[in-house]
């Protein structure tokens, strides 16, 4: 990689303060990015419910036998480098504290169900009255406008309603869907983009705004060619033989699939982009069938794809997945073992540096997801674990609101924080 010479690394988002109500992954994952690049992200939680609106607080995986609010592995993973404070917005004093924090912030971020912040008295109009150029980014499944705006969602619901679940499956089987909340991750990525775009706009014009992000709408943009096939050619994806997610139609490739290997639940993905790839794969296989006219052209391979897949499975089934990967990569054929978590996290040189170890005040040292980018001038930093509930009350309320340790203790006593 290219290394910059010269000045020490800088923090890309230094000086940006985020008043952050985000939780779960869809929201917390977004503000994790901002914090990793130096924004001051102040995560605000409810002391009455002990922050349990975020269902990841306190649920596993755990590093050891310790359980409870501070030990949730997912929560820690998604909230690195953030500050944590508690505010009870049901109280007048709590509302005052929040108002003052907002006045000193650049962005307010949340992923509650639509309308929650407004009911607290902190809808966009009120936010704007507190700070005229505030950037408010809300992220919920269906957005704040439209017939379903009151509906509730989780990642799998968003994926179901947006077509992502349907598009992940094999013919004549139920939808396989996504084995994780792809749209919590990805909704978070769109939230990051929205925040950064709004910050850029404000920097150039002085103008703030409210960004209404609907996770399901962002998801719907991820099917472009299939949607155009529908609007232009009237061809639906709900049709016989579809979806066939391990195959490729755009561009057409064959073979293109996931094939069984020796060992338990061991698989390898192989794709031939063109006849040259097929010739190389055929040479590696070295069997008569691989040179048969029935597979000689892309057209023929597409027409005979079922038998082609069977023949290839016959070749792969007795071999080690990494042996096949090595041989086919050396031959120039796109190929990858389906890696288990252990293989890709601990044994794959191409994920080196991707799993930083953070220090969490209660948990101790634990590894988390890092960021898959290297920025030469402004590298990311993920060193501090997620905040414990109200961990930074004294620091934040002291530094930003001028409260003494004694006053903070008193607010805690009174149930305000």
């Amino acid at each position, binding site marked *: 990689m290219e290394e910059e010479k010269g000045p020490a690394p800088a923090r890309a988002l230094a000086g940006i303060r985020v008043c952050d109500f985000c939780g779960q*992954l869809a929201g917390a994952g977004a503000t994790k990015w901002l914090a990793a690049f130096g924004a001051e992200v102040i995560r605000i939680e409810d002391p009455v419910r002990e922050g349990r609106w975020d269902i990841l607080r306190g649920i596993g995986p755990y590093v050891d036998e310790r359980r409870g609010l501070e030990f949730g592995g997912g929560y820690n993973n998604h909230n690195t480098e953030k500050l944590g404070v508690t505010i009870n917005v049901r109280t007048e004093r709590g509302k005052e504290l929040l108002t003052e924090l907002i006045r000193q912030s650049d962005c307010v971020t949340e992923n509650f169900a639509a309308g929650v912040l407004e009911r607290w008295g902190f809808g966009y109009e009120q936010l704007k009255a507190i700070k005229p150029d505030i950037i408010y980014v809300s992220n919920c499944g269906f957005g704040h406008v439209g017939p379903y705006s009151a509906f509730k969602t989780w990642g799998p619901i968003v994926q179901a*309603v947006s077509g992502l679940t*349907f598009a992940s499956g094999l013919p004549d089987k139920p939808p396989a869907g996504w*084995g994780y909340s792809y749209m919590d991750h990805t909704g978070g990525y769109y939230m990051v983009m929205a925040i950064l775009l709004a910050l*850029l706009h404000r920097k150039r014009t002085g103008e703030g705004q409210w960004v209404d992000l609907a996770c399901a709408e962002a998801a719907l943009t991820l099917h472009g060619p299939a949607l155009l096939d529908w609007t232009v050619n009237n061809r639906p994806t709900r049709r016989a033989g579809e979806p066939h997610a391990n195959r490729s139609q755009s561009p057409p490739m064959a073979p293109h699939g996931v094939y069984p290997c020796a060992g338990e639940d061991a698989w390898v993905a192989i794709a031939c982009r063109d006849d040259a790839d097929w010739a190389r794969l055929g040479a590696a296989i070295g069997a008569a069938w691989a040179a048969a006219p029935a597979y000689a052209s892309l057209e023929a391979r597409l027409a005979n794809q079922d038998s082609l897949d069977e023949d290839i499975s016959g070749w792969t089934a007795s071999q080690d997945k990494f042996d096949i990967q090595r041989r086919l990569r050396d031959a120039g054929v796109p190929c990858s073992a389906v890696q288990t978590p252990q293989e890709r996290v601990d044994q794959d040189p191409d994920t080196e540096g991707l799993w930083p170890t953070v220090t969490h005040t209660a948990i101790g040292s634990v590894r988390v997801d890092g960021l*898959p980018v290297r920025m030469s*001038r402004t590298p990311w930093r993920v060193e501090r674990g997620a905040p414990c509930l109200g961990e930074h009350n004294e620091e934040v309320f002291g530094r930003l609101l001028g409260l003494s340790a004694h006053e903070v203790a008193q607010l805690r006593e009174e149930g305000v924080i």
Partner: protein
Amino acid sequence: MSALAGFRVIELASERIAFAGKLLADMGADVVLVEPPGGDPARHYPPFLGDQPGPDRSLWWWHYHTSKRGVVLDLESDAGRARFRALAADADILLESEPAGRLAELGLDYGDLKQVCNNLIFVSMTPFGRGSASSAAPVTDLTILAGAGPAWSCGYDDHSLPPVRGGGNQGFHTGCHFAVMSALTALLYRLSSGEGQFIDVSMHGASNVTTEAGSYSWLVARQTVQRQTGRHAAAVPTQSTQMRCRDGRWVNTGVPPRSPADFGRILAWLRDLGLEDQFPDAIFLEIGAAMPKPITYDLIGVDAEATAIFSAGREALALIAENVNAKDYFIGFQRRGIAVGVIYSPEEAFEDEHFRARGFQTEVAHEDLGRSFRYPGAPYRLPACPWRISRRAPKLGEHDDEVLGGSKVAGSR
């Protein structure tokens, strides 16, 4: 004013990076797509307008290159490289996903372009990141998702069936999301510091950190999640959440009900549908509705009553599914405050009244064909600087004169 108005992006055409360029172009950046003579191979990706192939008829091309201008440059020639350098001299961001080493061989890598554009933001998105020992390995979306974790987590309870790649080239998309987040972060930094930088995005890395508990169950607890039909892969098997409705369509019931209010609402709908008599466990819904607080996860499977209530909730969801159609199930439960989802195909979602009411469908004029077509719309709504498709995808070399002959790079032709 658009969020990215006035910023110029140079994109070296590649199927991998195309989406990143679109995300920037639809927010107002002046994205110049650079193709080789003869055009980028993706011009020939199906589906096609009217199923008739042609370099300007690919719907793949139409979708991924909205709002961009297109030029042809032969980077194998001195003249082409000179023009490319002149273009880069005026650029704010460069997007590339070229084969390893190619730009260095051409004298067009970051170090070279920095000479002509000191504050350039150079985004390199490659399969495994720059400098990887695997750099020469060819990849496709499928092989990325297989190696990086998504495929391990997606598929069926029946492990004699292969892991499944989620459809829609999401491995490419995920890489592009990180390319855009990085580029925008760098742009903000540049506005305050004046400095550009080099950004190295790994597609393999991007999907590796987009697997939720797939990664962190291992990182935290050395647990291996196992794929399950239509729900989260998990280290300990969980119960099915996907149900088939009366019309044969599927729904996802997400996180099963645990709150008293939920149990009350489920019972009420069972009664409205006249199904209470068919459901002996309705009594547990009644008990659940009268609980002082929600069932916590730690009680399930441990406390007999809590477990019975929890199971009755799930079984009632299944019984209702047998008796109503999928769309009605979705609307009916959501109106009752319970989060379930209908499993739509992409086009069914596109035509749904909610997204229509939000104005998601976007008309794009193809003046050359004398028609306009409906496209997918904005992923986010920034009212002060709106998302917009400013033009259809470019034809081969459509903007050669406008871009390469313009005053900005005068003298380079």
